[in-house]
């Protein structure tokens, strides 16, 4: 009976994580000229330049935040999608099927994204 209370609380927590990490992303990508992140952009120029991306790729902090952001975004988005679909008043069987499909696709995307983050970290090192 308490399932929705738990899921909603995690939904809100995931939203806060997304807000913080997207804020960090926007700051690094778009406020570089103002804040001068020399350690994050050692090659100078644009933050999106290959040399800067490769330099950041060697830092453990980034793959960790990629996986965290991916987890939060997947949970937040897929739970929201589940709510929208449930409001169409599907039957109990269809509700279970929707939940299973969303969980499986979410886990699949999380594994794929985590593998990409870890592989790119290995490659950069």
């Amino acid at each position: 009976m308490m399932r929705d209370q738990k899921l909603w609380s995690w939904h809100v927590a995931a939203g806060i994580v997304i807000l913080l990490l997207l804020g960090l992303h926007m700051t690094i990508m778009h406020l570089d000229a103002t804040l001068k992140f020399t350690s994050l952009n050692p090659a100078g120029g644009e933050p999106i330049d290959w040399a800067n991306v490769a330099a950041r790729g060697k830092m453990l902090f980034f793959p960790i935040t990629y996986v965290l952001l991916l987890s939060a975004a997947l949970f937040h988005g897929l739970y929201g999608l589940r709510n929208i679909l449930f409001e169409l008043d599907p039957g109990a069987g269809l509700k279970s099927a929707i939940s299973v499909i969303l969980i499986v696709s979410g886990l699949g995307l999380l594994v794929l994204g985590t593998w990409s983050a870890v592989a790119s970290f290995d490659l950069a090192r």
Partner: protein
Amino acid sequence: MSDATAKEILYRIRRFEPTRDRAPRWQAFTIPRVPGMTVLDGLWTIKQTQDASLAWRSSCRMGICGSCGMLINGRARLACNTQVSEIDAAVIVVAPLPNFDIIRDLVPDLSPMFDAHAALMPYLIRDDAREQERPTGEFSQSPQELERYLQFSYCIKCGCCMAACPTYATDPVYSGPMPLAQAQRYNADGRDGGFLRRRAVLGGERGPWRCHFAGECSRVCPKGVDPAKAIQLMKRDLVWDYIRLRKEQCPAAVMSKPKAGTRRPDIPEPPPRTV
């Protein structure tokens, strides 16, 4: 505003008699316009002079009982509380409250709303049943504690908020704004200790989670109650509860009676009790 100088006014009313009609139909009535006339007055005029079979619910005629909620020109309102002159149209279009089955004409079946209301235990829950049955004093409550729930207690259960709610329109499991606002009214009451019992229902599918905060419930409420706010406060309380940050409410204790004083000599004795 409708033309206040017109001598007559046209009503279009949705009719449905389940034993005879296969689907609802519209019927038009023209009645004399009287200054100060409410939509409910017009319905009574139609019933008395043109069609005695027209059915609706009403009782107090003063926005207290919550019986005459209906859809008037596309908005859920109380017929007794709506002046004909305040409707911005040449025709008064009246239909039963949406989101409910129709019993007959303008009479909706409100039993799902009252079932959901009862399921959320809209009453004080305390351990001291004896004190509630045979009170020995008053439960302590400060004006600030009263403010936490007072506006939600003005609800008259007319069902207008339920008729306006887009989520309740599609999701039969969702309890709807009235029952949820009333559950919050008691959860926020300092005299109540029933949060955990209500949480067993509110934490599941019948809780506030499907609310999109459209706010229509608050816009249409004829008593100025803000059910949308109650639902957001309830969500906040339940999230705090899940992460163990909700301050547990200790139901207010019975206030001790004032100690015996000395009567001033210039105050006369009260008259003897007659009852």
